[in-house]
């Protein structure tokens, strides 16, 4: 129950090819996140899984069953949308039960499912209200509840946190993680926010221009990226890319990647420059250093007492360097 297989998915809108040969397997109970910059095709891929778009080519299997020709309502999926997409004319209770009522489920079953969702998300006070009377966070909880009620094989989340403010985003993120733990269900989650991807996912799929760049656990992508795109996309502040020649690194390597937190301040380090800007975040300080090889971001824990305009020397351990060839591919 709840596995997903995508085989050779191709999709284009007009002449614009948005997905190119996507192959993917998701196991039952996995929390998988599609992440990538806007326009990378991640939402289109989610809509293809949901059955809301028909791919030009390729197969979609849900729970071992080929669902290419199956309409969205029959695929045993539930989707949570960025804009919540609650039915404005229905109460919270009716919003949540509509799917099951359409499918002709028994009313006792519907009642049980609703009370399950209500309990998990503490929706009791809102059951008789219309969406217009709820705040953004409450609406998103109702939308998640509507998905739970359907007891789907696959939960699909389409940027569910994008419309929430920062504090609510953290809370809802924790809520979603808790739901996944309790329900043990398979989740496919789309976001452009790499922090959401890192904090929620068991498996991240990085997409760019309609292609899968890399698949792996958050730490695998962080520590062992396949190419410069993944290295730069995962992690914040982003990885620094320094010309290999500047560091005196020979061989095939064209670029060397070093994470901001891997720098140490050292007068006789391999890199030197002047501080162009400082960000004091309390627990950490981001130092922006102008070097002959461009701007480098350095992350120091705690408060660093430094001055803008001052000279600074930087160093790092050799094993923290990642090497990339001139095409941006990782050299291992």
């Amino acid at each position: 129950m709840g596995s997903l297989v995508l085989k050779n998915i191709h999709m284009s809108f007009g002449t614009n090819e948005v997905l190119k040969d996507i192959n993917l397997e998701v196991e039952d109970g996995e929390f998988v996140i599609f992440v990538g910059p806007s326009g990378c095709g991640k939402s289109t891929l989610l809509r293809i899984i949901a059955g809301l778009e028909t791919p030009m080519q390729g197969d979609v299997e849900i729970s071992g069953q080929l669902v290419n020709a199956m309409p969205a309502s029959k695929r045993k999926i539930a989707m949570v949308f960025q804009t919540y997409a609650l039915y404005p004319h229905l109460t919270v209770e009716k919003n949540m039960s509509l799917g099951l009522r359409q499918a002709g489920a028994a009313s006792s079953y519907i009642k049980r499912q609703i009370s399950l969702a209500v309990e998990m998300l503490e929706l009791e006070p809102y059951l008789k209200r219309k969406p217009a009377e709820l705040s953004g966070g409450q609406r998103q909880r109702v939308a998640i509840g509507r998905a739970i009620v359907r007891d789907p094989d696959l939960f699909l989340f389409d940027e569910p946190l994008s419309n929430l403010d920062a504090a609510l985003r953290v809370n809802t993120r924790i809520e979603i993680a808790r739901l996944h733990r309790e329900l043990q269900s398979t989740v496919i989650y789309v976001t452009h926010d790499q922090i959401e991807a890192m904090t929620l996912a068991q498996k991240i799929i990085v997409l760019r221009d309609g292609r899968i760049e890399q698949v792996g656990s958050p730490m695998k992508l962080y520590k062992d990226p396949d190419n410069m795109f993944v290295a730069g996309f995962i992690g914040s502040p982003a990885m620094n890319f320094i010309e290999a020649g500047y560091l005196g690194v020979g061989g095939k390597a064209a670029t060397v990647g070093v994470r901001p937190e891997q720098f140490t301040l050292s007068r006789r380090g391999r890199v030197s420059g002047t501080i162009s800007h400082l960000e004091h975040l309390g627990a950490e300080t981001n130092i922006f250093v102008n070097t002959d090889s461009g701007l480098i971001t350095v992350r120091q824990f705690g408060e660093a007492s430094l001055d803008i305009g001052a000279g600074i020397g930087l160093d790092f351990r050799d094993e923290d360097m990642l090497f990339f060839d001139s095409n941006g591919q990782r050299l291992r």
Partner: protein
Amino acid sequence: MRRVRHTVPNVLLAHAALAAYTVIALFPILLIIINSFKTRKAIFRDPLALPNPETFSLVGFETVFRQGDFFLYMQNSLIVTVASLFFILLFGAMAGFALAEYRFKGNTLMALYLAIGIMIPIRLGTISILEIMVATNLVNTLTALVLVYVAQGLPLAIFILSEFMRQVSDDLKNAGRIDGLSEYRIFFVLVLPLVRPALATVAVFNMIPIWNDLWFPLILAPGEATKTLTLGSQVFIGQFVTDWNAVLSALSMAMFPVLILYLIFSKQLIRGITSGAVK
């Protein structure tokens, strides 16, 4: 973007402009109504004066009710207007939804084709329309008028409504699809209520020209049983003598149904019920 500041002179100027416009717009209507309650002599002697005990007269209304079948005309007008509006809104919204929602070959071409009617006045085709109506035995029926008005109103309706349909959240429609709603239910239950303001706009745009039209009733349905109010009122306008009392009275009464329809559309439909659907 700079916000307009609500200073006292600004507000005064705006209200002065609006008041001036209101006076200009209402003046002819007021003139019709006050003169419909006056004797014929008083109308010509002092058209701007209000009726007083000496000049007050209901002779116009009496003539209207005595001659011609005023209520039948009004009923015909109402049937034609309401039926035309209903079909314009229904088919316009459906076509707009299809153009906005579905990707199919020739979508843009179809949209363009449907919009061409905006640029070409339907009256240019009057002779052909009359031939069609004669051939299909629809002359002197209200159906003929409804058909023509629907054809006349559809292009602009489709144009406006498809624009509004595009703004309805895709997520909402997709949520409906996942919950197993049919495309018809998505259209009628989810989408139509959200474009109510646009429907009201289209309705108001189409209502007045249909109600006031003289051309097509005169050509396609001049028979006594199918006369509309505008056409019916023409019996009082003669080549040599015009019964102004009757004309003005008929016009005063003709205004009310359309006024009521307008109030329904503007009050009932243009309501901010969209809030809460998304965001």
